[in-house]
């Protein structure tokens, strides 16, 4: 196992780290699905307020997505513009 230098190790660890960082996508996925389900329920109950519900849903989804985006950002950073290298 000669020839494995420090940067190689960092790259390998970064790839694993990027994979782990994308686990953050689970939370927003569940959250947004739940929110969308609730929104469908709300629209089913009050179809006339579908515009307001949709708007709120989009905002809520964007907020919920933030953590996922952070995870994605860390993953991309580790893969493409790794600050450790």
């Amino acid at each position: 196992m000669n020839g494995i230098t420090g940067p190689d190790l960092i790259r390998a660890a970064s790839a694993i780290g990027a994979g782990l960082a994308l686990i953050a996508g689970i939370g927003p996925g569940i959250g947004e699905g739940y929110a969308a389900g609730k929104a469908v329920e709300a629209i089913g109950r009050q179809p006339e307020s579908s515009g307001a519900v949709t708007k709120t849903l989009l905002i809520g989804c964007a907020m919920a997505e933030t953590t996922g985006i952070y995870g994605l950002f860390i993953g991309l950073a580790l893969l493409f513009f790794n600050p450790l290298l």
Partner: protein
Amino acid sequence: MEGPRIYFTIPIFGGINVNETEVNLLIVTLLLLVVSLILTHKMEKIPRKKTQLLAEKIVITIDNLVESTMGKRYMAFAPYMMTLFASSVFGSLISLVGLRSTTQDFNTTLCWALVTAFFIHYIGFKSSGFKGYLHSFAEPIAVMTPINMIGIVTTPMSMALRHFGNVLGGSAIMTLLYSAFAGVSSMIHLPIPALQVGVPAILSLYFDFFGGCMQAFIFCMLTMVYISNVGPSDDS
């Protein structure tokens, strides 16, 4: 994955880089100017042209959005919201013609988020005075003060990162897809790179078009909500 290209460096103040994002920002500005001039060209009292109808539709939509989200007292923000939305949408959509999105640069979204943060604190300061402004950090209870202090930084940071991260993520996925399809095309010896042209276009529609509009809308909505939340509500 590459950052914006540096075209040249102005040799003052230790070198100011003129990069792709800045040039594209100017292109977007020019585009906005041209579009506005076309839309409002020879307007009449009775609208006959489709461009005028479109211009009126845009203004009415923005006005309604601002009024329903922020209330009547913040109607002065309507042109700014329009600017923000247009800059963001056009900035994201120029990637459809092969230019680099202006929003794919953290500096751009950070600047917009900082402007929002400035408005948040300026309006909080103006509406409740210096003491009330300081007191607002101890709301709802005094223990929350450190968290609220952190919020000063995290609010613009999360706004900027959300927009930037979405565009960057979309772009990264598109880059990966392009290289993947290029690999598949060369693997099955296609005479023309059909996969590279056809399939990513549909995905690009989602990531660039839908994602761009979505993020622009969300950025504007969050700006409006944050700003209207610090000031006194319409009722009081």
